[in-house]
């Protein structure tokens, strides 16, 4: 199709601007009034579209902004906190880690493959936009109850979408988590995280553009896909949301790969002044962002935007969420140099406008002006709500001693736990992800027989041509956050800190992905406020600041909210990857200890849920002083070579942690410790704990006593069986652990696979 054929002004009339239209775009009556006040007139159709996406929850954070401000975002490693495309931290040697996590929940429910794929694509663009080469992807997935008729299809589609996109682009998918709970039945969560590597002196920002500079469009052509996607992501689902399918974007990982290489090559020159990817709200948000951050105006000639469909109007071009597109401000005169590099990679390159000094966003097409909005009020007067909230209900207390192991015994319950959907091996998922491409992966996902032959509590990826490595993890325990949002918020940060620590790395900073229900409901707003308070307290205590994040609200279907799920993506660094330890038992005859105090907290434990069928009690409380103390101790001991394996104690408690270490190392153990109350001791989920293995028990005990860290011996690594009062072979444990998910995906009877061994 020739460009001339595209450039005919369509004859159809745009709808009249009314309050009803504004409401259908997601604006409230007061927001619509404000739009008219800012413009001093009725908006055009294009302008209304632009206001509505910029003021959507997804783009404006209007319900969460007030509370996000309370989070700590500075620290000695922080180069760039929230507000840019991704956070940037100092990892030494003049290098930086650039990272962020972002949700693609709603699209992934409507169209699992494309929704998940474009989630991965979008977050990678946020990272390489800043000049960083993506070196690792992680993902946190939450699906509905396995028995729900849609769950299996969603798992299959989401995993295939992540695999299809990430593998093709050639960035290793090295970690993540997958949980199942009925609260996600109508609203699964897909949170994707990318970590990139950049030189500190080559980081690119959205800010910094000046007047009279060319604005360049690079990447795929613009089509009609994803129009109003940001608005869809800011609304509750009703039944029948499948009709939203056209608002889901379609991903092209091959173009993304070309775009990465082309942008990173161009960034080696000095042509780019400012750059922004076209993510949610597409060309609108990228143009507004560049104008707002540079305090300049922008004129775009939309006729020049590469278009994939005919007869497009400015409304469609500005709101399209077509993927794999970038907007750049170039140094005047460098257009030809830039064009040569972009076209070498067979990508579209078009000068589509220039910057001005009047701080207006002006859009021309077909010889007419379609939009003239003053940028400062569009951004600064975006609605900000202090939504009413009610404090969460006090959780009910339970008596830990009242719950005993079942008649199947300790090992019977252990088998059931390690085969339950939340703890069962996720091999069926991660074997579809290439975790090895780029050749730097030290610890890959899973427990036993992993892709990189080793695994740890965090993924570990070495920095090219250096000995240092980044440790990365994704964590949150939604059932804790639901029972006690404040402690649950703390726990998510603390577990991230522990997982990084358990490899020997120093936790540096986090990104958060806040998935909640409808903030217009006071009890949901109460969850958000309390969870953020808890999160902030933990970040401050652990010196673990938040450098980027994303908020996903309205995760409800027909009035039912998801469990609050503030996912934490943590990043740490270890100066020599050879000092890192995995979770596997490495040798027989080593002593097994638990570090940290075991009180036997069974509230909200998996034991209570899976063995007693109860989701009740308070979440375990997090003693942040103990977290810090124990974490510092663990790290010091790993780095001085005293510890040969380390695993944090989380879901399922101590015995699950020990079993996972045995399965990973294919080595058994003899447990000598006799618990007074077996269920709470072995399955309690007290925080601030690690299981460690050492060949020098006396020295470790001595070191712990010096700094007052609680330490207790559990047993010795030995043989091929897990031996308590009874015993079970490690290979049997592994078989049970590995079986649930493939059986489930192949539709083999659930009950059968859970009870058989």
């Amino acid at each position: 199709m020739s460009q001339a054929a595209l450039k005919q002004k369509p004859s159809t009339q745009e709808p009249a601007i009314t309050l009803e239209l504004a409401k259908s775009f997601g604006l409230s009556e007061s927001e619509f009034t404000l739009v008219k006040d800012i413009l001093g007139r009725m908006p055009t159709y294009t302008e209304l579209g632009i206001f509505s996406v910029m003021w959507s929850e997804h783009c404006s954070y209007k319900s969460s902004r007030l509370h996000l401000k309370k989070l700590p975002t500075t620290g000695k490693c922080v180069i760039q906190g929230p507000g840019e495309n991704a956070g940037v931290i100092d990892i030494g040697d003049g290098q930086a880690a650039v990272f962020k996590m972002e949700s693609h929940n709603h699209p992934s429910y409507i169209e699992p493959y494309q929704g998940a794929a474009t989630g991965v694509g979008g977050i990678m663009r946020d990272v390489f936009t800043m000049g960083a080469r993506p070196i690792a992807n992680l993902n946190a997935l939450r699906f509905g109850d396995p028995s729900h008729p849609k769950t299996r299809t969603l798992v299959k589609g989401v995993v295939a979408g992540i695999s299809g996109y990430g593998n093709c682009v050639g960035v290793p998918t090295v970690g993540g988590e997958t949980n199942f709970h009925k609260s996600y039945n109508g609203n699964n969560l897909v949170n994707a995280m990318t970590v990139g590597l950049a030189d500190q002196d080559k980081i690119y920002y959205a800010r910094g553009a000046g007047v009279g500079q060319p604005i360049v469009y690079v990447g795929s052509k613009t089509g009609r896909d994803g129009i109003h996607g940001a608005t869809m992501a800011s609304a509750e689902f009703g039944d029948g949301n499948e009709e939203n399918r056209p608002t889901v974007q379609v991903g092209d990982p091959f173009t993304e790969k070309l775009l990465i290489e082309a942008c990173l090559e161009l960034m080696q020159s000095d042509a780019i002044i400012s750059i922004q990817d076209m993510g949610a709200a597409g060309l609108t948000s990228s143009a507004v962002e560049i104008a707002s951050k540079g305090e300049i105006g922008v004129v775009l000639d939309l006729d020049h935007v590469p278009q994939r469909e005919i007869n497009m109007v400015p409304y469609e071009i500005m709101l399209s969420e077509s993927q794999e597109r970038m907007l750049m401000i170039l140094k005047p005169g460098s257009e030809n140099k830039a064009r040569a590099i972009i076209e070498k990679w067979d990508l579209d390159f078009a000068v589509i406008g220039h910057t001005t000094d009047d701080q207006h966003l002006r859009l021309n097409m077909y010889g007419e002006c379609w939009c003239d909005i003053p940028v400062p009020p569009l951004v600064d007067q975006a609605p900000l709500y202090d939504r009413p909230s009610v404090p969460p209900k006090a959780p009910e207390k339970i008596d830990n001693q009242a719950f005993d192991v079942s008649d199947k015994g300790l090992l019977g319950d252990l088998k059931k736990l390690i085969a339950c959907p939340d703890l069962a091996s996720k091999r069926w998922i991660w074997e579809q992800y290439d975790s090895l491409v780029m050749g730097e992966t030290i610890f890959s996902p899973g427990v036993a027989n992993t892709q990189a032959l080793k695994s740890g509590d965090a993924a570990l990826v070495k920095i090219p041509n250096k000995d240092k490595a980044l440790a990365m993890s994704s964590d949150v325990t939604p059932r804790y956050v639901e029972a006690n949002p404040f402690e649950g918020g703390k726990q998510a940060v603390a577990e991230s800190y522990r997982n990084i620590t358990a490899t020997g790395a120093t936790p540096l900073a986090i990104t958060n992905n806040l998935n909640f229900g409808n903030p217009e409901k006071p009890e949901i707003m109460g969850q958000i406020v309390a969870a953020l308070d808890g999160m902030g307290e933990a970040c401050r205590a652990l010196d673990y600041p938040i450098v980027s994040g994303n908020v996903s609200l309205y995760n409800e279907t027909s009035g039912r909210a998801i469990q609050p799920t503030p996912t934490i993506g943590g990043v740490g660094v270890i100066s020599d990857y050879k000092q890192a330890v995995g979770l596997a038992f490495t040798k027989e005859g080593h002593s097994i200890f638990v570090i940290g105090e075991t009180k036997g907290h069974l509230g909200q434990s998996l034991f209570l849920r899976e063995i007693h069928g109860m989701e009740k009690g308070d979440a375990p409380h997090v003693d942040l002083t103990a977290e810090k103390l124990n974490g510092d101790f663990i790290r010091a001991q790993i780095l001085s070579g005293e510890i040969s394996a380390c695993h944090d104690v989380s879901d399922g408690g101590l015995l699950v942690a020990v079993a996972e270490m045995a399965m990973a190392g294919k080595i058994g153990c003899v447990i000598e410790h006799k618990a007074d109350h077996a269920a709470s001791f072995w399955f309690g989920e007290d925080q601030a704990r690690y299981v460690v293995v050492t060949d020098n028990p006396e020295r470790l005990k001595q070191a712990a006593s010096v700094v007052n860290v609680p330490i207790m011996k559990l047993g010795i690594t030995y043989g091929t069986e897990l031996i308590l009062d009874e015993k079970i072979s490690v290979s049997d444990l592994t078989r049970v652990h590995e079986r649930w998910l493939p059986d489930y995906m192949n539709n083999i009877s659930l009950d059968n696979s859970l009870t058989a061994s």
Partner: protein
Amino acid sequence: MKSAIIVFPGTNREKDMQMALEHVSGQTPSLVWHKDTSLPNCDLMVLPGGFSYGDYLRCGAMAAHSPIMKEVIDRAKKGTRLLAVCNGFQMLVETGLVPGALLHNQSLKFICKQVHLRAENTQTDFTRRFAKGQVLQVPIAHGEGNYFVNDDTLKSLQDNNQIAFRYCDEDGQATADSNPNGSIYNIAGVFNDSKTIMGMMPHPEDSVVTHANGHQGIPLFQSIVEALA
């Protein structure tokens, strides 16, 4: 030994290959862009892994017609050694330099995992450092690695010792369970009839460098270096 790795749009394992070759040979391979029409002077050409052209058409089909491929095919026919891995192997079968086709994995899913391979013919420039029947563990990472040939071609591959590696278990038995993708006769890699070209789906280059947790791909690269030194 001088080597050249061909880079196509969508290639993504060229760095892995570069690190492995450099580690074993001590010389940095050159990267050659697919739009180039001439190759540098080299003893070994490599078609690396990735998703050339997104693999939107049949895997490797587009890349097999890139400008540089004319030169690669010419040189390969004249005897310059050619190693083709994963997406490179898919391109190689598209060129017809070795027989066969690579179909979707039997599970219809992308699979990344460690597999065991048995070296079948250790009399070649690619495999001389392996003992016959030696088992090595290296990863695979592909969605379309299910090697297929018809019975006659299989017979001729066998008769002419053109099978390089077969998937097997830890003990070297080529069982159905150890076949990760449904490849005929558990074939993981093959030679051309003169053994100057080898194509394989697994990634020996990811089991070479010091920081890799496995190192069983090393003899393959040592063989090449020794033969072409």
